[in-house]
């Protein structure tokens, strides 16, 4: 049912009883008046007919038609009389007057009779005429027979009356009653509207006020208060609403103030935390940069050292040394990966590639480690191709398989790929290791989280691997799931989009392997302000058969060119003397050379800004410590590939 608004309800409440009472009163009074009219009409008729009957007694006795005719004619002057007929006792009409019309043909009647002719709206009355009795108390009339005798009827008078005037009066009365009732009703309506307005207006005002307050406009209360009049019937309510609005406004002010204070405090805390984080990052960056430089040089030296001929004992020592350096380098690489992923500086380069290549690489990189622990590393051969970034997937697999090997004491690790129906390739890494309890399965992806390594044994890694995996997979929009049972083993499942095999795409790595010594005879310009690192790098490059020119700074490098050196490739440190960056130097050198000589930059800096700047310039940034193998691979790539096809911005480490 439709809800009535307050105005309609009030009007209804006022008007319904009014209408009812008016109608009932009018009906009651009119009914009574109609009855009165009808009764008086009937009484008048009866009295007229009786009068005529009485008056015609002697005329009937004497058979005096003339007198009766005069009487009948006179009777017509009475109100409503339409017809008068006087009949004698034999039923003969002695006198008749009035309009000819339907007169009931009646036998002589001993009693009064009356009736109504509906079609014509006429009443008829029959009045018998008896001689009037005169009391004669003489002694001659003691005859029982005579006393009982019915008086002789002289005749009867028939009169017809019209209801026309009564009906007209009734109609007039009805109209009058209707008009009075209508006027009363209208007046009542006007009064109800007028009075209800006095109530509705304040209510409407208060409704609007509350509505505005509800919308938060507390000033509305003040605005209305000014317009208040003393005779507002809802003043008390309004006053309370004002009070409420005031309180609300006050409460809201206090709340806002508190929120502002809290926000301020939070902001300060956040700033502090950010500051602290920044300080930590800066410290980490600085520390890692400072660590990188010597580690970089150390790695290069050890690499160089390993290439020299040694006796068996020294060779073993150098092997251990290499392993230590590699661990250190891995650690720093892990930090670097996190740093880069955090900076979103990793560019995704999705293209179809064969999983078999990755598997070969993994086998090559990790079989030694597996063999050391006496584990069986098995990569099930596959010919599936996927669409993803081969480098990033390789890092993911490297981390996952490395982890698996690390946490497995017996049995082995299996890497397998199979195609699933929905255009996906499922890549799984199984191990028979210690497993991960359900409560830890979420936490293992956090930074520096390690299951069962409370002593922080560094041979078990840093605890960055799964974090890197997770971040990388997220970056690639792949899905990674983990299933594990403590003591039974763990299974990581990676879903990759499948593509049809594309044999014409030659694999870079395979090709690289095919020509191991193609760097020989090429010339390189090494710009490095750190003497140790410079000599180590130069020595390494020379050991690959390259001709190397070194410069400790930009000036020296420009001089070097000025002396007629035409390097095939430029290898420069990023941070140089005189506040110049390697990026700027490479541009200057290229200008001087008049050609876009291939170049790569090296840096111990993990600052995301640096990484992005280098990528923007289309150069490759190698992070210290640089692995000799990686450097060699990059150089080969730079020198073999024509300038237009070089990968831009791939930050390799």
């Amino acid at each position, binding site marked *: 049912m439709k809800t009535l608004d307050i105005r309609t309800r009030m009007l209804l409440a006022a008007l319904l009883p009014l209408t009812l009472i008016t109608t009932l009163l009018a009906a009651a009074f009119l009914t009574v008046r109609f009855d009165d009219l009808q009764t008086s009409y009937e009484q008048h008729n009866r009295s007229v007919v009786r009068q005529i009957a009485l008056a015609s*007694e*002697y005329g009937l*006795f*004497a*058979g005096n038609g003339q007198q009766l005719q005069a009487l009948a004619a006179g009777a017509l002057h009475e109100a409503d009389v339409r017809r008068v007929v006087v009949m004698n*006792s*034999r039923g003969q009409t002695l006198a008749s007057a009035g309009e000819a019309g339907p007169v009931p043909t009646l036998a002589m009647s001993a009693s009064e009779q009356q009736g109504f002719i509906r079609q014509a709206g006429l009443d008829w009355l029959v009045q018998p005429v*008896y*001689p*009037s*009795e*005169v*009391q*004669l*108390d*003489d*002694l*001659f*009339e*003691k*005859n029982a027979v*005579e006393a009982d005798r019915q*008086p*002789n009827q002289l005749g009867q008078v028939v009169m017809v009356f019209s209801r026309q005037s009564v009906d007209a009066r009734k109609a007039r009365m009805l109209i009058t009653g209707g008009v009075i009732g209508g006027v009363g009703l209208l007046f009542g309506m006007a009064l109800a509207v007028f009075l209800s307005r006095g109530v509705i207006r304040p209510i409407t005002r208060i409704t609007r006020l509350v509505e505005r307050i509800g919308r938060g406009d507390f000033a509305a209360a003040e605005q209305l208060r000014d317009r208040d009049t003393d005779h507002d019937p809802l003043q008390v309510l309004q006053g309370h609403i004002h009070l409420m609005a005031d309180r609300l406004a006050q409460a809201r002010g206090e709340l806002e103030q508190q929120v502002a204070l809290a926000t301020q405090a939070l902001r300060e805390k956040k700033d502090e935390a950010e500051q602290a984080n920044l300080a930590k990052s800066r410290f980490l960056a600085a520390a890692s940069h400072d660590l990188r430089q010597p580690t970089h040089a150390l790695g290069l030296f050890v690499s160089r050292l390993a290439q020299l001929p040694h006796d068996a004992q020294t060779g073993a020592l150098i092997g251990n040394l290499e392993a230590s350096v590699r661990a250190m380098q891995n650690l720093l690489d892990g930090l670097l990966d996190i740093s880069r992923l955090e900076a979103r500086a990793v560019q995704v380069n999705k293209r179809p590639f064969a999983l078999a290549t990755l598997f070969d690489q993994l086998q090559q990189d990790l079989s030694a480690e597996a063999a050391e622990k006496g584990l069986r590393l098995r990569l099930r051969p596959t010919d599936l191709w996927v669409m993803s970034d081969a480098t990033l997937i390789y890092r993911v697999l490297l981390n996952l398989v490395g982890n698996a090997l690390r946490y497995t004491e017996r049995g082995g690790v299996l890497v397998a790929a199979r195609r699933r129906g929905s255009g996906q390739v499922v890549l799984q890494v199984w191990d028979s290791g210690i497993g991960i309890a359900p409560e830890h399965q979420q936490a293992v992806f956090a930074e520096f989280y390690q299951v069962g390594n409370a002593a922080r044994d560094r041979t078990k890694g840093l605890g960055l691997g799964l974090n890197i995996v997770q971040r990388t997979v997220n970056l690639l929009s792949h899905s990674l799931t983990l299933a594990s049972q403590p003591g039974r083993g763990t299974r990581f499942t990676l879903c990759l989009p499948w593509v049809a095999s594309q044999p014409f795409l030659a694999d870079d790595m395979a090709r690289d392997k095919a020509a191991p010594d193609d760097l020989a005879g090429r010339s390189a310009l090494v710009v490095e302000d750190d003497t140790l690192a410079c000599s180590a790098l130069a020595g390494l490059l020379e050991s690959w058969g390259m001709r190397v020119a070194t410069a400790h700074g930009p000036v020296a490098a420009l001089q070097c060119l000025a002396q007629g050196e035409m390097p095939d490739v430029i290898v420069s440190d990023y941070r140089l003397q005189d506040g110049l960056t390697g990026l700027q130097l490479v541009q200057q050198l290229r200008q001087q050379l008049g050609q876009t000589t291939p170049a790569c930059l090296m840096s111990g800096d993990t600052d995301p800004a640096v990484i992005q700047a280098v990528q923007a310039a289309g150069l490759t940034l190698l992070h210290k410590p640089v692995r000799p193998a990686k450097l060699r691979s990059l150089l080969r790539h730079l020198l073999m590939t024509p300038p237009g096809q070089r990968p831009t911005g791939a930050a390799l480490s």
Partner: protein
Amino acid sequence: MTRTLRLLLLCWALCLTGGVARAQPPEPSARVVIVSSDTAVAYAQAAQAVVDTLVRQGVARSDISQVFASELVLRQQSGLPLCPAVCVALGSEATRVLLAGPVKSPVVSALIPRRSFERLLRSSGKAGSALVSAIYLDQPLARQLALVRLALPQARRLAVVLGPESSAFAANLRVVAAAHEMSLQDVTVNNLDDLAESLPQLLAQSDVLLALADPLVFNSSTIQNILLSSFRARVPMVAFSPAYVRAGALLALYTTPVQAGQQAAEVVLGILRGRPLPDRVMEPNDFEVGVNTQVARSLGWSFDVDVLRQALRRQERLP
């Protein structure tokens, strides 16, 4: 007002006498028993007049007892004998009861219309009996015509409406009228319609209308119209009862109950003194003349009722 008071007094007196009568039922030794037809005032007046007259003439009050006709019927049914020296019957009913019953005493009947007495005699079969004597209520025709002559000397044409009961008078009436130098215009009606039709014509040919008691012609429902007709025709009516005078008749000649009672008492006294019962019927020997002065004035006459009465009495050589 005075009329009401008088009625009350009368009732009281009746109660006294009636109470005496009832308290001491008429012993077999009562010499006079007065039987009233009913409790009407006229009978009470007449009874009182009988008692008064007898007492005044030396009859002991204890020798007189009064009874109503209805009581007498009950007494006769219970077999109580009633043997007074004489019975006085007041009215037709009392006369009928006495004639029908086993009473052997002579009966003096008063206040009885002539036709009623004749009918009673016919029906009771005591026609030959000498034990009943009646004093008629009706005035003799000669007296009535004498009154007309005295009161309305110019009137020569006498109109009479006769009914079934009074038609027998017609011949006698004609003789008497002629004796009073008047011509009789008579009409006999058998129903009311005849009356209405014949009356205007009759009145048109008459100087005076003499009303003779006949229940068909003169009764309470016809009298008004007859009087109206006669008044319109300016024919005065001479009637036989004071009620007619009150209703609008010009004159009436009648015997009052007291006069009738006194006459009956005279007869009773004679019987008590050993005289034989007089003739079977007696004309009333006293009368009154009533006049409606209003009607008389309207018709242009004026009468002195005492003068008229005395004149009539002188004509009849009554004391």
